[in-house]
């Protein structure tokens, strides 16, 4: 993975010093709440229901075991012994003390980590496919480009006061595992006409109040022009994006208002002026970055049948929680952070330490975070899978539910968030309790449930196969249900099935939807395929049937 050089170390150390100074000025009363807010936000610090919340950047979801141990240390020393992995591959701490945050940042800096631009109206952490570098269908590893973008976007002098936050996702595979179509910019690695590598560029995707799938504004951008093109998009947005209304300030609204064609023309015009300046990436620089992400020295191993003669629990785990690796004899292992009864994405310090030890022993010494709030051990020899399962089981990280209904995405909701209408976490518990029969979940097949506690859509409900949104009705919690959304290669936004349902009815409503699915599916059809085939109506009729 990428390793800091002197420049990176110096920059992060100076950023920590700057934030320490800003915090001291605030605590000494020299900065008002209002003045401190944009400063702390640019460093990932929200003030929430109970306490400040610190969001730490995990660039493109890649962590060394040394970093994982530091995250465990932070959880123990400054928080209540756990952290919360988010839908943008980052980790959040819900209980730090404001005056200790500079110390947390200093600790993070020792392992080449920071919280720079994890919130605020600036370019956020760039996310990527969590199978980057190991997926068989990959055109090129997105991570070197993500690191180039990370550096370019970090404290970019021109783009730190954008109209609104700005998120970039990069994927190297046609199967989009980074939700890139609902990002402000989505970059898809592609091969060009002469076999050269570059990007398809999407702009203007996003969720929140106005969910929109990104539009392709360039079919093929040769990779050496990556930064100049991004800079052109950002400059057009910085100038023309709306600043009078935060609900209309995202780039998606600008693209809609200008029209795709006019927006593309404005970008191309700006790009023509800067494409051959210092922003041009040369091969030497790209190769320097690629070296940091070189494939492991893999052993020559055959694919083996690891399940023969093993207990059913292991077989189920193998089937649901491991994934194909591009090298024979290896598998990628999904580490489930969706233990029933625990908030999706939460992980204790002991689990982090245990996972770090395991990753050092049997994997590459790296751990990846996913946008659906799980973790991945990317490089596990098939012969080590049984031991891996045993150790993960002991850590409580082997629930064999990846890709099933129980693998829900969920925002913090009322438990931690001051904007929430809904207690997303308790709804998640209601659902896991109701659907506790794992064989039923396996029978339902791939099913993505995504839940947000309010319109801001931190839980990506618009792109859930089933989406659940908390709404406030006269001070009571109600839930609006959508079906048919997806954030994969064929992204789509879900459709509302009807009036929102009461809190106690959420799991029952899901049960009705799933009954319809089971009764009309053909052969191996998934829930999403059925919704796409038959539309919302049969589902709506069942849920709102008078006699139900």
């Amino acid at each position, binding site marked *: 993975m990428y390793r800091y050089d002197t420049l990176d170390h110096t*920059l992060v150390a100076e950023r920590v010093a*700057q934030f320490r100074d800003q915090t001291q000025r605030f605590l000494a009363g020299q900065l008002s709440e209002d003045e401190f807010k944009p400063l702390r936000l640019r460093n990932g610090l929200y003030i929430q229901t109970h306490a400040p919340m610190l969001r730490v950047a995990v660039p493109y979801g890649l962590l060394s075991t040394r970093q994982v141990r530091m995250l465990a240390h932070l959880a123990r020393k400054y928080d209540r012994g756990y952290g919360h992995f988010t839908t943008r591959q980052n980790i959040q701490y819900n209980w730090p003390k404001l005056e200790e945050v500079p110390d947390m940042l200093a600790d993070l800096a020792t392992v080449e980590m920071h919280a720079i631009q994890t919130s605020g109206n600036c370019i956020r952490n760039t996310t990527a496919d969590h199978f980057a570098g190991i997926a068989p269908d990959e055109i090129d590893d997105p991570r070197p480009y993500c690191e180039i973008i990370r550096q370019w976007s970090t*404290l970019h002098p021109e783009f*730190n*006061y954008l109209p609104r936050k700005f998120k970039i996702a990069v994927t190297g595979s046609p199967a989009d595992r980074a939700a890139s179509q609902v990002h402000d910019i989505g970059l898809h690695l592609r091969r060009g006409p002469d076999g050269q590598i570059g990007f398809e560029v999407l702009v203007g995707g996003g969720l929140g109040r106005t969910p929109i799938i990104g539009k392709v504004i360039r079919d093929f951008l040769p990779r050496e022009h990556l930064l100049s093109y991004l800079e052109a998009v950002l400059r057009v947005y910085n100038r023309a994006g709306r600043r009078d209304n935060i609900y209309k300030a995202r780039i998606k609204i600008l693209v809609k208002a200008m029209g795709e064609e006019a927006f593309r023309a404005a970008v191309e015009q700006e790009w023509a002026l800067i494409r051959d300046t210092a922003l041009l990436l040369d091969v030497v620089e790209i190769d*320097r970055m690629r070296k940091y992400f070189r494939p492991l020295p893999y052993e020559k191993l055959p694919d083996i049948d690891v399940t023969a003669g093993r207990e059913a629990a292991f077989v189920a785990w193998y089937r649901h929680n491991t994934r194909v690796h591009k090298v024979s004899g290896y598998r990628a292992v999904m580490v489930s952070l969706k233990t029933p009864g625990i908030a999706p994405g939460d992980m204790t310090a002991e689990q982090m330490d245990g996972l770090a030890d395991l990753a050092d022993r049997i994997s590459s010494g790296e751990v990846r975070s996913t946008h659906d709030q799980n973790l991945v051990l990317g490089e596990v020899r098939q012969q080590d899978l049984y031991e891996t399962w045993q150790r993960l089981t002991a850590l409580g990280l082997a629930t064999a539910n990846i890709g099933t209904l129980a693998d829900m995405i969920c925002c913090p909701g009322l438990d931690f968030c001051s904007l929430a209408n809904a207690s997303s976490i308790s709804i998640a518990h209601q659902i896991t309790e109701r659907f506790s029969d794992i064989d039923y979940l396996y029978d339902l097949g791939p099913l993505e449930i995504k839940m947000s506690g309010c319109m801001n859509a931190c839980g990506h409900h618009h792109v859930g196969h089933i989406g659940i949104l908390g709404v406030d009705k006269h001070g009571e919690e109600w839930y609006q249900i959508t079906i048919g959304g997806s954030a994969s290669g064929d992204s789509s936004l879900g459709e509302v099935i009807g009036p929102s349902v009461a809190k106690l009815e959420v799991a029952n409503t899901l049960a009705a939807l799933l009954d319809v699915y089971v009764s009309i599916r053909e052969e191996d059809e998934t829930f999403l395929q059925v919704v796409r085939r038959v539309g919302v109506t049969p589902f709506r009729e069942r849920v709102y049937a008078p006699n139900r």
Partner: protein
Amino acid sequence: MRQIVKHRQCQADAWSMPGEAAAAAGVVVSLADYLAVQAGTLASPAPAGAALGVQLEPADDEAQLLPFAAQLQLVVVNFPKSAEGRGYTQGRMLRERYGYCGELRAAGAVLLDQVFLLARCGFDAFDMAPGENLTLAAAELDRFSVAYQTVVGTVVQPHRRGQVG
């Protein structure tokens, strides 16, 4: 007299801003007025011998100053709110695209914690928000000793640093 940070020093400002009585040294006017004076449709409000400067608002297009980039001595970029970000682009473009070499001043709701990034966009003078400490603001210009982006005045292109030394 107004105190500003200019060329890293706290100093008195000799110019008058739009809406103030014309100063003997120089008078700053809005972009519309500046263009009108240049077009000969408006008499210059500057006393004889005084220079004429211009103040850009966030929605103004700095490209209109291109013909006058060599003769201008002061461009003020106004930041009505501290969250206003268009001025960063205006500054960079004036320096990098239009070759403007005179004083480039950020004015309005300019806060201590913003001068470093503004300076990286080419600003060399700061008319700070009321209450900001100018000495501390000048010191903020040294907040970072490194940066990742190649902007006006960068010596080694940071994204090519692998090829140096």
